[in-house]
């Protein structure tokens, strides 16, 4: 089983290297192990995360792509759909029925025709447009709704931190 997962992951890696989507780099941390990847995601333009470069880790199960990978940011994050420990909580990372967050039924779910690229593009959309109804980080969701200015200030500090620029 892991044989087909490995073949698929190698093909996806090749594809992502040849045709990288804008603002995204991803690949295995070490080519000895294709089941652990690192991704770098650029904050989408025109949003409070613009300019940041956010590192994340993807862990693939042995039956990938039948089951989805897990994704976790390895830098500090403050976002309604990201847990305090960096785990990303969006619908495409869950098969339908696996529903700890009670996503809307129309939300895009994991299925074997999805891909790493689709996940990363969904994460970029998530950075641009948080879903404040899924409370992976309740404080962030509340602040996003009620005090956008403060949310933006925190986001800016995190962006600077990812770039290694000292914060004022």
């Amino acid at each position: 089983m892991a044989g087909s997962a490995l073949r698929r992951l190698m093909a996806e890696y090749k594809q992502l290297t040849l045709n990288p989507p804008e603002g995204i780099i991803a690949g295995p941390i070490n080519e000895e192990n294709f089941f652990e990847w690192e991704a770098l995601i650029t904050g989408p333009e025109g949003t409070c995360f613009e300019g940041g470069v956010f590192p994340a880790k993807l862990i693939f199960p042995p039956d990938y792509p039948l089951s989805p990978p897990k994704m976790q940011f390895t830098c500090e994050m403050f976002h309604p759909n990201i847990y305090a420990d960096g785990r990303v909580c969006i619908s495409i990372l869950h098969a339908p029925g696996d529903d700890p967050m009670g996503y809307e039924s129309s939300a895009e779910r994991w299925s074997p025709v999805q891909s790493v690229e689709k996940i990363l593009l969904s994460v970029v959309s998530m950075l641009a447009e948080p879903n404040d109804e899924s409370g992976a980080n309740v404080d962030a969701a509340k602040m996003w709704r009620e005090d956008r200015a403060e949310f933006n200030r925190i986001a800016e500090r995190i962006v600077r931190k990812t770039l290694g620029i000292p914060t004022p």
Partner: protein
Amino acid sequence: MGEERSTLHDRFDTGVNQDELILQQQRQIEKEISEKTPLVGDMENFSSLEKEYAGDAVYCQKVQDLSAKYKSMRRTRPDGNCFFRAFSYAYLEQLLNNPEEYERFYALASKSKDNLVALGFPQFTVEDFHDTFMEVVSRVGKGGGTFTQTDLHKLFNEQGYSDYIVVYLRLITSGRLQQEAEFYQHFIEGNRSVTDFCHQEVEPMYKESDHIHIIALSTALNVGVRVRYMDRGESSEVIAHDFPEGTRPSVHLLYRPGHYDILYP
């Protein structure tokens, strides 16, 4: 594999997330139960089924009826993929000895990928499943002494191949539903669109099949399926439903609530 997966999971779940833990545990239990049955079992007579229902008058009568109509059965793993797995096994098994039908199916299966891509499925990922599916179909076509029933059986019990066949049939089913969305919309309850239904109930693994899946797949491949229903219903017989209606069935399946096995006339 179970162990490996739970370690990965533990490493990730340093934060507390009870819901996910519960879900994980539930999955694990289901998995342990289902893995007691091979993906596809050996051919067997109906005595084990009889034993299963000893003391249950309604079911015993139906097992009697079943054994008057069929010679034997073959069980599949109850993992939500059983319809697709049972169907593909039973059908490919027949193709081993039917070169004419094989030619027809080979041509149809070869073209099916372009059809899916035209419908908007991502070429890159569909190709992955289509390649494996065609590899299996091609092996079946070798026939004679080079690829036997035993080889097919072995291949269907290798998770990598077996699951990829299931995925590809799910995609063909989804493709047919979306292609004929106007027709199939009537069979979908609630406000879901056909596309949403496909994303939620057809394309993902482990999702159980209903009539709508069977109609779409049997029509798409032009392969007749007869399902024998064994449930608490009044009748003393195992009632037959043919998909698509009016066709001569080539695949026979036994349905018990929530599960499909293969039947041999």
